[in-house]
């Protein structure tokens, strides 16, 4: 992995992430969020995780963010008002982010990571699919996530439905 390329992408991702929380205009913040996702996809691609990189762009940039921005565009007063947080929110946000970063560093440094085996480059999309449907691997978590998403979907419809609407 080229260190110059990695560090320029890393700095880009961090700056874009900071802009998400700092920009007063919510549409611009949304665009920064997409830039962050794109940068993370670039890091995946540099680690030879091509499938993950493509899926990151497809799901996060192409679907989730677009739906998010769509909602922003439909609510006109939100797109034109300047959103500024209060001081207490800034402090609590920074605190939570700092704690998360600290824990992430601790966990990464203390955990024994499995090494060896085939590099990601040789892992085909089909292998990932097989792992998802292998009951000794990820079948149960995969199905759990599917049910969770379904519950969230039904819940969203229930919340959005008007009272007395059949």
């Amino acid at each position, binding site marked *: 992995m080229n260190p110059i390329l990695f560090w320029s992408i890393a700095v880009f991702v961090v700056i874009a992430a900071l802009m998400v929380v700092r920009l007063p205009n919510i*549409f*611009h913040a949304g*665009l920064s969020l*997409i830039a962050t996702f794109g940068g993370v996809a670039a890091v995946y691609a540099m680690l030879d995780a*091509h*499938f993950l990189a*493509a*899926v990151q*762009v*497809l799901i996060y*940039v*192409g*679907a989730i*963010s*677009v*739906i998010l*921005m*769509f909602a922003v*565009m*439909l609510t006109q007063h939100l*797109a034109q008002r300047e959103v500024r947080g209060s001081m207490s929110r800034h402090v609590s946000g920074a605190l939570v982010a700092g704690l998360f970063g600290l824990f992430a560093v601790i966990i990464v440094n203390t955990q024994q990571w499995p090494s060896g085996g085939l590099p990601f480059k040789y892992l*085909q*999309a*089909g292998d990932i699919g097989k792992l998802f449907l292998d009951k000794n691997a990820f079948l149960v978590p995969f199905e759990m996530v599917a049910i969770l998403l379904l519950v969230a979907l039904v819940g969203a419809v229930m919340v959005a439905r008007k009272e007395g609407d059949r």
Partner: protein
Amino acid sequence: MGIADRIRNLFDSAGLPPALDWVKSDIVMMLVVLVLVIGFISVSVLFLIWLERKVSARIQRRMGPMLAGIPWLNAKSMWLGGIFQTAADAIKLLIKEDLTPAEVDKLVYFLAPMLVFTASLMSYVVIPFGDGLSVTDLNVGVVYLLAVSSIAVLAIMMAGWGSNSKYSLLGGLRSVAQMISYEIPMIFALLGPVLMAGSLSMQDIVKAQAASHWFIIPNIIGFIVFIIAGTAETNRPPFDLPEGESELVAGFVTEYSGMKFAMFFLAEFSNLFVVSAVATTLFLGGWAFPGLDAIADPAIRTLVSFLVFLVKTYVIILLLMWIRWTFPRLRVDQLMHFGWKTLLPFAFLNLLIAAIWVMVSVRM
């Protein structure tokens, strides 16, 4: 093997002096391939615009593209008639003033046309133009293609919002809703051939078809779904609601003029080529053709495979143009009903048929 490796081999066989070894470095090769691809797109778009005008003129009996030219040429051949129409359009577009409305969101407005073309350009990376003739053969080619095409949605959203105009905003919203809805049947239609090839790499899918048969059998439903969804994804009539002139002036391109407008135009025609190329690759065997292996010389074989690919792609392009100029525009509610309630179930059906086909052929 990609295009860059081929150029390197060409240099090696030509006996490049060692002092010029930097020419073979990755960065120089990237630039060379980029220039090649952009050149290919420019020439294709130029040709496609001319072709579209001719086809539309023939179908709807439009006068300009048939008769704007020298009377002697007009009488000589139907293809030479009206040859000055495209030139007149290009000159008009070039000398137009590049206006920027005062109230636009500057950066977003400026970036949108570039991003829309970039997204289109990125698709060309995985298209197999011929036997071993693609920029890179990613082993997740089809997923990459879908991912890249979803960036275009974002660019259109930026154009709609950044223009700060009600027509642009409404056009952008319509376009995004349409593209998200039609992306899903498109993905499921592509899954049939992927399932049969057992690979996501575009070159592998073509090779699998060269070894057996074109994947339009049994994926004929998937092919039709893909052609319809592809028309919708490229915002071409009858799915051009985002720029319906009678309702929205020109939708998300309303506030754009001059070269920025030309970028949207370029991306639209470039996407037309991409959609046709993908349909060719996944359903019509790409560059594969019976008897291609009989050609011994690898250079000639590559050239012939490239020509085969182009001919097949242009057949699809002509089909798309025929659809464009013969159907009236849909209504918004019809569009959504058709996408979710008709196209998607048929895409599922196609996946089911492909799965059964694969299962039966494995058993036999």
